[in-house]
C-alpha cells in the first residue's frame, strides 16, 4: 500500500506539471501582448509595464516565467491581479461557497440517486423501473444549462417557490435548487450504477445464504446486499466531488453564486491572466488528488482489491 501510494504520488508530478504548464502557456504566451486592454482605452504607462514585467519576469523565456511562478506558488504566493488584489484572497472568499454548493449537490444526488437505484434494482421491469430509466436518460442527455434555466424559470419565476438567484449569505434553503441542477447528471448516473450493481448482487451466493438462514428481508437487503453493492457508488461519489468542485461554472453563473467557477470565468473574460492560472492550478490539484483518494478508498472498501 505504501509503495503504491508513493508510485501514484510520483506519477502525479509530471501530470501536474504538464497540465499547469499547458494552461500557463495558453494564458500568458499565446495571446501576444499581455498588457492589451489592461489600462482602459489608452496604452499602459511605462512604469506599470516595467513593474509587471519585473514581477512576472515577462521579458524572459516562458520556461523561466513558469519556473518562477511555480516557485512562488509553493511558497504560498498565488500572485496578484493586475489591479493589485492578492489572488489568495479571491480564492479564500469564493472557494467556501463552491464547497458548500458541491456538498449540497453531493448530498442531493446521493439521496435521490441511491433511493431510485436501490428501489429499481430490487424490482426490475416494473413501472418505476421504466420511469427511472427514462428520466435518467433525460438527465444524462440534457446540457446542464438547459436544466438550470428550465428549473429556475419553473420554480423561481413561474411558481415563485424559491428565489431565482442565491443571495450572498448562501443559505442552505437557497442552495437546494442549484444543488439539484449541479448534481443532476451524476444523480442519474448513480441511480444506474446502483441499479445494475444491486441487480447483479441479488443473485450472489451470499444473498441466497442469508435468505436460507431465515434472515428477514430487511436485514438481507439492508446489511448484506447494500454493503456490497454500494462500493462502486461510493467511489463514483468521490470522483464526482472532485469534478463538482471544478465544474460549477455554468450553475454558478445561472444562479449567480459567488464561487470559484464564476471567478475563473470572469477572470478569463477580463483576461486576468494571473488569476486564471492560479485558480486553474488549484482546481487541477484538487481534481488529481480526489482521483487518487478515490482509488485508495476503493481498496479500503473492497478487501478483494489489493494494491501491491
Amino acid at each position, binding site marked *: 500500500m505504501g509503495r503504491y501510494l508513493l508510485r501514484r504520488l510520483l506519477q502525479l508530478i509530471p501530470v501536474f506539471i504538464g497540465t499547469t504548464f499547458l494552461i500557463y502557456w*495558453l*494564458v500568458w504566451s*499565446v495571446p501576444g501582448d499581455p498588457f492589451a486592454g489592461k489600462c482602459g482605452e489608452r496604452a499602459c504607462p511605462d512604469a506599470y509595464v516595467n513593474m509587471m514585467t519585473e514581477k512576472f519576469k515577462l521579458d524572459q523565456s516562458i520556461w523561466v516565467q513558469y519556473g518562477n511562478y511555480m516557485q512562488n506558488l509553493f511558497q504560498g504566493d498565488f500572485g496578484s491581479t493586475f489591479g493589485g488584489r492578492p489572488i489568495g484572497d479571491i480564492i479564500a472568499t469564493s472557494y467556501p461557497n463552491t464547497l458548500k454548493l458541491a456538498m449540497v449537490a453531493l448530498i442531493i444526488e446521493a439521496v435521490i440517486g441511491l433511493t431510485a437505484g436501490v428501489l429499481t434494482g430490487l424490482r426490475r421491469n416494473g413501472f418505476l423501473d421504466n420511469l427511472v430509466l427514462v428520466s435518467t436518460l433525460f438527465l444524462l442527455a440534457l446540457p446542464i444549462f438547459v436544466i438550470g434555466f428550465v428549473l429556475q424559470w419553473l420554480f423561481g419565476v413561474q411558481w415563485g417557490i424559491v428565489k431565482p438567484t442565491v443571495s450572498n449569505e448562501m443559505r442552505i434553503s437557497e442552495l437546494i435548487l442549484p444543488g439539484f441542477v449541479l448534481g443532476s447528471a451524476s444523480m442519474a448516473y448513480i441511480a444506474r450504477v446502483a441499479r445494475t450493481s444491486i441487480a447483479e448482487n441479488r443473485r450472489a451466493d451470499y444473498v441466497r445464504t442469508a435468505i436460507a438462514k431465515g434472515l428477514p428481508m430487511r436485514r438481507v437487503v439492508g446489511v448484506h446486499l447494500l454493503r456490497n453493492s454500494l462500493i462502486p457508488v461510493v467511489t463514483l461519489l468521490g470522483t464526482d466531488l472532485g469534478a463538482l468542485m471544478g465544474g460549477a*461554472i455554468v450553475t454558478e453563473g445561472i444562479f449567480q453564486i459567488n464561487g470559484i467557477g464564476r471567478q475563473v470565468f470572469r477572470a*478569463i*473574460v477580463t483576461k486576468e491572466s494571473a488569476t486564471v492560472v492560479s485558480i*486553474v492550478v488549484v*482546481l*487541477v490539484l484538487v481534481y488529481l488528488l480526489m482521483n487518487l483518494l478515490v482509488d485508495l478508498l476503493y481498496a479500503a472498501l473492497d478487501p478483494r482489491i489489493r494494491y501491491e
Partner: protein
Amino acid sequence: MSDPTAASIVSTPPVEQPTGVGAPADAGVPENARREKPRGLLGDAWRDLRRKPLFWISATLIVVFVLMALFPSLFTNGDPENGTLTNSRVEPSANGWFGYDVQGRDVFARVIYGARASIVVSLLSVLGTLLIGGTMGIIAGYRGGWVDALLSRIADVFFGLPFVLGAIVILTTFNGSGTSNSKAEIMALVSISLIVLSWPVVMRLMRSSVLATREADYIVAARALGAGTGRIILKHLLPNCLAPLLVYGTIMVGTFIGVEATLSFLGVGLKSPVVSWGIMINEAQNYIRVSPFLLFFPSAFLVTAVLSFVMLGEAVREALDPKLR
C-alpha cells in the same frame, strides 16, 4: 471528457471466428455453400437493431435533423439573420409559429438554421476524436513498453484538465473578443478544442481493447503466417476493437451538441452571425421573465437532438453487447 459514463460503455467485443484464413479447406465446396458463413458482429447487431422501436424513433429524428442541417430551406422560407425591429419579442402566432426574438428575427427560421452549426461541429469533433484517440490507442496498446508509457502520460495531462474549463481557456485564447475569425474558422476552432480535450478517453478505450485482443489466437496465427504489422492492425485488430468505439462515438455526437451549445451559451464558442441553439439560449436568458418562449424553442430542439443521438447510442450498445442478449 471526464464524463464517468464513458467507462460503463466499454466492453470488449467477443473474439470473432476468423473467416477466410483456411482457404484450402473450402476449395472443393460449391460456390453457394459459402453464404452460410457465420454473420459478423455487425451483422448480428444490425439484425438486433431492426427490431427495436427505440432505434427507429431516434434514427428518424436524426434523419430529420440532418436534412435540416443540409437543406434548411425545405423547412422554412424565413430569414434567420435579418429581422424587423417592430416585431421585437412578438409572441408565437400563425405568422411566426415560434414568435420573434429581441431583434425581431423569426425564431422558427433561426431554430431550423441552427441545426447546421451544431451538427457540423459535433460530427467533425467526433470524427477527429475517434481518429486521433483511436490511432493513439492502437499504437500504445500494440507497441507497449515506453511508447505506451509516454502516450499514456501525455493523455493524462489532457485528462487532468476539467473539460468545460479547458475548452473556455483554449477558446478565449484563440477566439477571444479581439479576434475576427470567419464562420468556418470559429467552427473549426470549437471542434479542435473539443478534440484536444476528449481524445484521451477514446485512447484509453482503444488501448484496453487492443490489449485484450493483442494476444488472441487469430492474431498469433496471422503473425505466424507472415502478416506484417500494418496488415495485422488493419485486417485483424481494428475490426475486432471497433465496437466500443462505435457506441461511444454515437453517444459522443449527442454530448458534443450539448457541449457546443454550452460553450456558445457562455459566449466563448460560436458567435453571431452564426446561428446556433446555444447562441439563441444565451440571447434569451435576459428575457426569461417576460418572454420565456424565446428560451423554450431552442432548448426543445437542442434537447431533442441530443436525446436522439444518445438514444441511438444506447440502442447500438444493447445490440453490440453480447452480455445483454
